[in-house]
Structure formats: C-alpha cells, structure tokens
C-alpha cells in the first residue's frame, strides 16, 4: 500500500486500527458473539437436535440454582483447587526465593528448573491417565510400592479424599514449576537498590523476605492468584481423565457438569448454558474480590526506589 505524502505532517494513527482489525474482528466473532449466544440459549429451552428455541425466562436458572448436583460440582472444584493451590503457591514462592538468593546458593539450578517446569508442558490428559494407572488397584505402581514397604494395598480410586487428593497433587505437580518461574521473574524485576537498603539497615533474610520481597511481588501475586483461580474453576482435562468424577461424582468439577449436561444424556444445551453463565458470574465475583483485596494501596505514594 503506497502512500503519497501530500501533507508535510502525516498521520499514521489509522494504521493502529488496521493492525488491530484481525484481532478485534476475531475476538468479536469467536469470543463476544458466543458469549452473547450462550446467554441467549440460557434463557431458552434448547436441547437435543432442535434448531429452534423458545424463550422460557429464568426457568433454567431456577433449576440450576436449586440443583444439588451443580453446587456439589462447584464445591468439588473449589476443594480440589484449594488443596492444589496452597502447596503450589508455597513451593513456587519458596523455590523462587531460594533460586534468587544471594546467600544460599544451591548447585545445579538450571538442571532443577528444567525438571520442575517439565510437567507444565506435557499433555494434562495423558498425565491424568498415567496417574490413574499408577494409583490403580490392585496392580498400580503405588500399591506395589506400598506392599513392598509392608503396608496394605489401598483402593485410591474408590476413596473420595484420595481421589481428590491425587487430582490436586497432579495439578500441583503440573503448575508449581510455572509458578516458581513467574516468581523468579518477579523477584529479578525488583530494584536491587531496595535490597541494598535493607541489607544496610541490617535486615536478615527472613525480614528481607517479608518486608521487601513479598510487598514488591504484589502485582505478580495478584496475576498468579487470578489466573490460577480462573483456570482452577475451569478444571476439566485431568479430572475427567483420572476418574471421570468418580467415586460418586465427588470429584466432578463444574466444567464436567456443564459438559455432561450439554453433550450426554438429554443434550440439554439450555441447562448447560445457564450453568455456564452462573459459573461466569461466580468467577467474576471472586476476581473482583481478589483485586480489591490485593490492590496496591500505596500506589500514589511510591518514591524513587519504588516499583
């Protein structure tokens, strides 16, 4: 596209729009429109092979909001996420501080980082299937080891706490390395002058961590919290491939509930859509709560040494 410059001052502003068009257009088509369509379906009675839908008001929402199965799935999702996230956050932060520490230098950090991040990149579905084999009864590897150590074989897949625990462990296993790398980047981005000032003031490692490192990591912490929470509510792959919600639907997550409503049984797209909208609102509420809790209250008062 050749432009002939007739004026001396050329405005390139409109190129901003042009360059953004593919992204904005596809976002409107593939994200915004489906969202609106979902809301529309949630107010209808669409199911099965029907192509027409009738308006039914809030009937779907009433059914979802009073459905034990739905709220059970929300509870399962939250339990699995919390049991996963607390160790994930702890280890991610601890290892990040360890690997950026100037006093305690552990050998082979590069090597460790490679193996700690590795689980994040492999296919979650395959991992879950693999773990379901490892924890199988009576022939799984874990049971074999237990027997070797003198314990009884245990039916991991039939026990509610064990199933949820292993699922949470798998998520932890897959994400603590990623969390660690993010925190390392966050710590490396802190102005070294602050650490110098703390050292001069005589702060030891623990004090430095709580009064310098942690506050400076606030933004990264919020980012991790929100993205992990949003991701956690949408857990599907691992839970489905590990035990498919068993035993007794006690490990069934919300996304699995929605998927089963829409793509099995009666194919009740309308119920699934209503469930999706409620989930969206729940996630939005928690996000806002997190933002409010973690907001930078000193944002306006930062001095020269601040981030």
């Amino acid at each position: 596209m050749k432009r002939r410059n007739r004026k001396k001052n050329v405005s390139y502003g409109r190129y901003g729009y042009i360059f953004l068009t593919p992204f904005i257009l596809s976002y409107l088509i593939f994200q915004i429109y489906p969202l609106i369509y979902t809301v529309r379906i949630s107010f209808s009675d669409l199911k099965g092979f029907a192509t027409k839908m009738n308006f039914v008001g809030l009937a779907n929402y009433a059914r979802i909001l009073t459905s034990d199965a739905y709220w059970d799935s929300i509870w399962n999702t939250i339990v699995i996420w919390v049991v996963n996230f607390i160790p994930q956050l702890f280890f991610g932060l601890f290892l990040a501080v360890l690997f950026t520490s100037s006093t305690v230098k552990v050998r082979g950090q590069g090597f460790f980082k490679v193996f700690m991040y590795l689980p994040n990149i492999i296919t979650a579905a395959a991992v879950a299937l693999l773990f379901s084999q490892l924890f199988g009864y009576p022939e799984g590897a874990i049971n074999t080891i237990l027997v070797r150590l003198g314990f009884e074989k245990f039916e991991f897949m039939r026990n509610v706490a064990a199933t949820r625990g292993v699922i949470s462990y798998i998520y932890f296993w897959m994400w603590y390395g990623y969390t660690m790398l993010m925190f390392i980047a966050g710590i490396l981005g802190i102005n070294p002058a602050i650490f110098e000032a703390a050292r001069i003031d005589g702060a030891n490692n623990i004090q430095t961590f709580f009064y310098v490192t942690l506050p400076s990591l606030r933004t990264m912490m919020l980012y991790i919290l929100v993205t992990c929470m949003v991701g956690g509510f949408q857990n599907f792959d691992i839970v489905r491939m590990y035990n498919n919600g068993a035993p007794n639907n006690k490990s069934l997550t919300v996304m699995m509930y929605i998927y089963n409503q829409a793509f099995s049984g009666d194919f009740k797209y309308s119920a699934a859509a209503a469930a999706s909208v409620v989930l969206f609102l729940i996630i939005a509420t928690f996000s806002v709560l997190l933002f409010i809790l973690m907001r930078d209250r000193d944002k306006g008062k930062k001095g020269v040494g601040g981030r």
Partner: protein
Amino acid sequence: MKKNRIQIRIIRVLLFLLCCFLTFLTIFPLWTMIVNATRSSVQIQQGMAILPSTHLMENWAVIMGRSGVNLLTIFRNSVVIAGGATALCVYCSALAAYGLVTYRFRGRTFLDTFIIVAMMVPTSVSLIGFYRFMYSIGLTNNFIPLILPAMATPGTVFFMRQYLLGISYTEIIESARIDGAGEFKIFNRIMLPMLSPAIATQVIFSFVASWNNLLMPLMLLTDKSKRTVTLFIASLKFANVYAIEYGAIYLGCAISLVPILVVYFLLSKWIIAGVALGSVKE
C-alpha cells in the same frame, strides 16, 4: 563465624536434597510410564520394575489392532491444528501488539485495559454458545473452529506488547518511512525479525496449548479419522477396549508424551527463559 558457615552448608545440602526429591517426583511417573510400556500386563500386575522389558511390540500390536487407530493420521491432525492455530495466533497477536504500541489513535488506552481484562476472562463459559454457533453454520467435525479462533488470544497480544515496550525502535521506523516503505512492509521486514525472541517463545507456548487441548476437539470432532492426539488418549480410557491391557495403556501415554519430552529437552533453555519474558512488569 564458623558456626554460621556450617549452618549455611547444612541448609544448602538440605535444600539441595529437597530439589533432588522434587526432581525425582517429576521423573518417577514418566520413567515408570516408559518402563511399563515395555512390559506385559501380567508383568505389571506382578510388581514394579526399574528397567524396561521386552514386550514393547506386543503392546504396540494391541494399540494398533484396536479399531481405527492410525497413528500417522492422528499425529498429522494434531500437527495441522496446532500449527495452523499457532501461525495465526502469533502473527495476528504481533500485528495487534505492534499496532497498540506504535500508533496513537482514539481508544488505544481502552484497548490496552481491555486486553488485560480479556486475559482474565474464563473462555470455557462461552463454550455452549460457541458450539451451537459452529453447529448452526455446519462447522462441527471440522478443523476450522479449532484453528481460526486462535487469532483472538489476548494473552499473546499482551506478551508481545510487553516485549515491544521494552525495545526502542522508533528511529528504525522513521528512517524506513523516509525511505518510502509502507507500514506493512515495515512490519513484515523490520519488526518481525526484531520480535523473534518473543515470537519464538509464543510459538512454543501456543503450539503446546493447542496440542494439549482436550475439551475443544472432544466437543467438536466426532470422526475417528479426524482425531487428535488428546482424543486418542481419551479413547485409551473411554473406548472400553483397553480395560486390562495395562501395558498398552502405558504405551499409549508414552506415544503421546515422548515427542513432547524430546522437543522439550532440546529447547529447554529457550522455553524456560521465555516463560517469564513477557510477565507482568510494572
């Protein structure tokens, strides 16, 4: 002073052991998978092993013998989908990020905030609408709905934007404009090469995300010939024909994971460096 040195030494050793333990936790399941992929179901039931055995071919026969398993097609499908999605995602995101950072126009600040908000929006909640949308235009059982939406990935745009904000290129652009180059030429010939680290990183992550996706193909693809690797994995559990063929199941997992592991170990340095390249900076 001496006490301090010994203390630090002990702590260092303990923490080193902790890291070794965590590494072991990573390796153990994967090594067990590889070993058990070579053992027969009978052997697996009898106990653990650390070294591989000889039944690889039998397990392989079990997998290939089950209905409709053409590994070449399955892998090809995943490559086509992931490759297409990655190419579109990275190029369109680079375009958008460049547009956001370089040009001044009405609504730019709105879009900046919008990208950040969009990054946090859960995408799964619009799945029903997306599916019915594709159903109504007859695009179910088709690769297109798995590839095209990748053009709208706010996370990648944000990543590229952060990277762009960190490099200064105004002079290069000015001189290119004076030389008469059009804006698109400038983008394709000058900016893309400058963006190569960010692009390389995002190619990896985008490809991996698409390759590992289970929910979307599960929802949209029904033809056995259009299966992706993740659907193949799902069939190992749900197709009810592999129930006690433990060796075959382990082999199936291995088939899907070993390629990723190989690529990962080859590129690990760049991958780990790239994870935090575009992280939140303020």
